[in-house]
């Protein structure tokens, strides 16, 4: 008996049944109440259904291709959702999760493992670089990835597509596994990212040179979030803008360069744009489900409760889902900040179709 089975009490089984019988929309509404009332360890066990007779071993072996497993009589497939930070990866995750046959979680950050596997299989004096052993090492690392995703997505037994959402560039995590990438205008990304850091109460995600600026600005933000001018915080810090605009460009460039190779290898890739999701949600959602070979008619409709409608109908500067607007940058960014963005990300903006040239 393993740790999971130990935790599977009658109470958790009851709560799990209730959860599975509740539509996602209602679940989202009830979530804040459940979080207050049900202790964390019980919530965790509700999220983790007991393992079947085969345990988690189903994810260990692939059938047909590296991203498909046979779980009892059901075939389950793996996919990856990526993109830049604050570009709508959470939104797309929520949209996918409206479908009863898909379950995506985040963030796994498998790039850490992949970097290590690349080293293990490419340094010429490491045994893993020998072709026959390279294949075993790659297989083993992909089994690690499948097992981790599978372990976290079993709370939706009907899901045949299991995914990871991590804000990252396009990159192979499991050979051939479908990839969905979402891109957003860097100018809106920066506005959104600067508010995100003002909201979050830890400096851990902020690079060291910008922590002083953050620590100095955050009390003013907390004292008056609605009156806070983002240019008085990180968005007004030239180094911070340079750093993150460059990071956005790096992610876009890496993805742009990876795309032809992935397509050549036969990896299905769906490219989404945040702005297009805003403009035509129904059309884009249909495209999303069709990409995964899912019937759109079976999915719940997007709703504000599931955070799946464009924007949030209001601005709440203290929420992860602050505003979700397109083109907000036009009212916020001054000339000097625009100049830095052009310098660091101008070419990639043109390549991604966000600008015709540098005269904006």
């Amino acid at each position: 008996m393993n740790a999971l089975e130990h935790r599977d009490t009658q109470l958790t089984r009851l709560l799990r049944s209730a959860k599975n019988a509740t539509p996602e929309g209602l679940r989202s509404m009830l979530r804040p109440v459940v979080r207050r009332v049900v202790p964390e360890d019980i919530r965790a066990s509700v999220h983790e259904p007991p393992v079947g007779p085969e345990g988690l071993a189903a994810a260990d072996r692939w059938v047909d291709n590296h991203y498909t497993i046979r779980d009892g009589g059901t075939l389950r497939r793996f996919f990856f959702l990526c993109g830049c930070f604050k570009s709508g990866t959470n939104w797309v995750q929520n949209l996918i999760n409206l479908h009863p046959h898909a379950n995506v979680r985040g963030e796994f950050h498998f790039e850490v493992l992949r970097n290590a596997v690349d080293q293990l299989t490419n340094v010429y004096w490491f045994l893993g670089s020998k072709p026959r052993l390279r294949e075993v090492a790659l297989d083993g690392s992909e089994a690690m990835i499948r097992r981790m995703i599978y372990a976290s997505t079993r709370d939706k037994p009907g899901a045949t597509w299991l995914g990871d959402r991590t804000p990252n560039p396009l990159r192979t995590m499991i050979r051939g596994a479908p990839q969905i990438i979402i891109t957003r205008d860097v100018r809106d990304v920066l506005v959104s990212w600067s508010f995100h850091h003002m909201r979050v109460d830890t400096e851990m995600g902020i690079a060291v040179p910008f922590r002083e600026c953050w620590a100095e600005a955050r009390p003013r933000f907390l004292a008056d979030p609605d009156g806070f001018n983002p240019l008085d915080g990180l968005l007004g810090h030239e180094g911070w803008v340079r750093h993150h605009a460059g990071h956005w460009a790096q992610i876009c460039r890496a993805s742009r360069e990876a795309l032809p190779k992935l397509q050549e290898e036969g990896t299905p890739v769906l490219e989404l744009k945040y702005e297009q999701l805003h403009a035509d949600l129904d059309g884009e959602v249909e495209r999303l489900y069709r990409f995964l070979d899912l019937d759109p008619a079976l999915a719940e409709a997007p709703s504000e409760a599931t955070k799946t409608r464009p924007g949030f109908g209001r601005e709440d500067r203290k929420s992860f889902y602050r505003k979700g607007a397109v083109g907000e940058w036009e009212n916020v960014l001054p000339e000097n900040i625009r100049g830095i963005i052009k310098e660091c990300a101008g070419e990639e903006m043109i390549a991604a179709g966000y600008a015709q040239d540098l005269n904006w």
Partner: protein
Amino acid sequence: MHTLTEPTRTTSATATRPGYFFVRGHPRSGTNWVSNLLNLHPAVSCTGEFHFETIYNAVHRTKSIPWQITGREPIRTELEEAFGDMVRRCVSRACRDHKPDAAWHGDRTPSDLLCWMPGARYVWVLRDGRDVAVSWTFHQLRKGREVIEASIPADASGHLLRLCDGFAEDPERFVREPELLLGDEAWVRHVAGTWDRRYRSDTGAAREIERPEFDGEVLAVRYEDLHADTEAQRDRMLEFLGLDPAESEPPSAETFTRAGYDSTDPTKYRRQGEVGDWKKYFTDQARAWYHDVAGDSLVRAGYAKDEHW
């Protein structure tokens, strides 16, 4: 259906499943020698070097970020178990290629001793850090500029880079001028620091591995003891794996399992394999630099009685 080698959670050899062991130690400490000695037994297949520490470090990092999903159960445990399975698959595949029926499968990698696979056996090879410094310096010179630039930090590599270009043309130079080999403070401090850090880290890991709840076993093997009585140490290692030493082949020059080498060619991978070689190359100044960094560990490891060596 594609089925990988069946994962095993067992690490001790049974009639149907191989046991797993890992040979670890500082580079130039005799890990190859130990691996060759173990391979003299028909039930042992040891290959290398995989460098699983690259994956181990990534696994450790992945499960240690508290706000990430990978830091929570059941993903954390699943990650650890999947990592163990990956290691077993890779090692078994490599070992079966060499010896299909071996009961023990091993990986030899000159890297840190890590507490990573419950129930496994670990052979920890130790060698006097000063001999390691000499052997390691020759090894780097033999490898040449490209490898030095790629593997040695810039603040310590200047000395080697200055020496390496002439090494191929005149490898005997250090026989005539031994004081040149360790004549640079940054380099001596670097090799001393690397050995010292490794010794401290491995000592801690050995304690961790032998915790009852981890259920691992560590056998420390000294290079110097291997020199003094190779067969006795080989037998000790085989008994550690529960094997009968009588079934093993004797050490031989052909299998690179005898102490030392006939050649003293500094350009060869197996250069000399000698104990106490360091005395030829350490000047008083080099001793002072080395002692300053690694003196305590030399004493703790039993290679020096005190600071007066």
